[in-house]
């Protein structure tokens, strides 16, 4: 497929991570009374940021030979299936 899904996931979660981490770091402690005193924005922001970065790394690695080998034999077979007539 033209677009490796891990790239958009990576970018989206990195962005979410950055937004939440920065906001969490700057925000007032009183905000976190409801979340049991835990700065959940900061903590979960860091988790999402890490997840996003890992996804980005995996997505960029795709061109490496191991994956290529795994999928190389498949497209011709898949292409052929288009030609099946409806009846």
């Amino acid at each position: 497929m033209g677009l490796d899904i891990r790239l958009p996931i990576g970018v989206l979660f990195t962005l979410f991570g950055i937004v939440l981490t920065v906001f969490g770091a700057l925000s007032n402690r009183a905000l976190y009374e409801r979340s049991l005193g835990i700065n959940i924005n900061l903590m979960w922001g860091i988790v999402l940021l890490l997840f996003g970065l890992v996804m980005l790394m995996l997505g960029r690695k795709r061109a490496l030979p191991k994956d290529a080998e795994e999928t190389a034999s498949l497209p011709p077979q898949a292409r052929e299936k288009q030609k099946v007539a409806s009846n």
Partner: protein
Amino acid sequence: MQLTSIDWIIMTVYFVFVLGIGVVLKRHTRTSTDFFLAGRSIPAWVCGLAFLSANLGAQEVIGMAASGAKYGIATSHFYWIGAIPAMVFVGIFMMPFYYGSRARSVPEYLRLRFDEKTRALNAISFATMTIFSSGISMYAMAKLIQTLHILDDPFRRLGLDPSWIFHVGVVASAAVVLAYILLGGLTSAIYNEVLQFFLIIAGLFPLVLLGLKNVGGWHGLTRTLSPGYVHSWAGMGSAHTNRLGVEWFGLAMGLGFVLSFGYWCTDFLVVQRAMAADSMNSARRTPLIAAVPKMLFPFIVILPGLIAIALPAPPQSNVLASTQAMVPAASAGMGLIPPKLEPGTNRPLLDKNGNPQLDYDLAIPQMLLHYFPTGMLGLGLTALLASFMSGMAGNVTAFNTVWTYDIYQSYLRRGASDQHYLWMGRMSTVFGIGLSILAAYMASRFNNIMDMLQLVFAFVNAPLFATFLLGMFWKRTTGHGAFLGLLSGTFAAAMHHAFTLPEGAIPGVKGGWLGNVHTYPSEMAQNFWTAIFAWTACFIVTIVISLATRPRDQEELKGLVYSLTPRPAQENMKWYLKPGWLAVFVLVATVVLNFIFW
């Protein structure tokens, strides 16, 4: 509800992304196979997550949390009994025929295996059903936006009439889904489903962590709640000793066998995700990969419901506090769950024993508002909105495929160019969404009609698995047998429903409209038994008619029936890529989970 700019930023980023993915994918959508089957080029893990997410619409998330609050951890039966075995079965035994027969849809498989009339019956009922499901999704989303007052503040600032919030919710969600499907077809839908899968976890997992910390972990829950809430099997011996009101046989046969296999093994909405896989092995692993997160999902969607009832009630309901009429009724609720209110008077609605009826559907929204500060709240809401939209998109992509291949190409216009069918796919997306909008308004106006329609669909679906089972594993099954079997299964379901009632219900849409022969302890028990009757009737009639009619030539059935199809080769694969091992792992883990929460 108070949203700040940080919440809006998160929501906006998400919407930009959804549309952006569509725009990028447009370049790769050139043939009808690209549009309807994602070019059969999606890797197994992506298909697996999409397979799971297509079913994990927001109604599922909200509904499962609601059931968690109502029935307790026994709700996990819908996952451990009601999904995993069927997912393993479809991956190991059925996918070789779906993927191997090169059918482009489930109705098309029925055409290959049986005949034209069986396909037409399935295609038409399925297409209608998807429209209504996506309409109901749309309605539920607009309703939630309204209930949570998400758009009230922006509307005030822009000086718009707040009575338009519902319409804006419907139209905006329709427009977003329309845009990304038009651009990227099934690939777009699948990618958004995967995105939504991660979003749901990102939005709900911290909620569960905070909630569990607050109530003192699982042990805290078992101390606070009565034992009925925290055991999934204890008490299943009789329908009267567990919260579901079902006995183990009805549960195992009705939910675990008929309903679950009927859904996961024959519903094109989920099977389409596996058909998009890049190889036979990937297609077979799709449901198995999906089963791994599926068996863990009760912890994310059911636990919030349990936590919500275990918490001490707040002085007033978060959701309702922001309405104009302040409600002094929180004490009538349970934990965070507020009572249902009578429209107009805002007094709690009472059941026949004089206890307030609880609005369980608010479990997840109440939890979000209770624990999440601004920031995380935006993420949690985005996750909910995302899953509403991907639920809609899943239905729309299944609809446009079945419409174009199984109705338009088969009965209206044969032999046109591939570009024409691609165009038709895009057109059918537009009118599919148009019809969904109509269905959404129908749901908001005539609740009873929607209930009745869902009932009819349940009758039509219940016998399906008997047809597939016989079709795939008994080469003697004939088209006439399958067709008449399906009709009699549906008829049996309707008759069973017509003569039975759940306890305390009045005859009508709940059953008993032709008389009452048997009373079930709960609606759930009645549903399960309706399914069992439908399946059995279909199974027997299909066999009898098949034996009485002329079988098809065995040559024609190669690749369509188990005994006439060579097993898919997998010798040169690493053991952990083989579907069989994955299936064993999934089943063992499910059994272990059942014992832990016995």
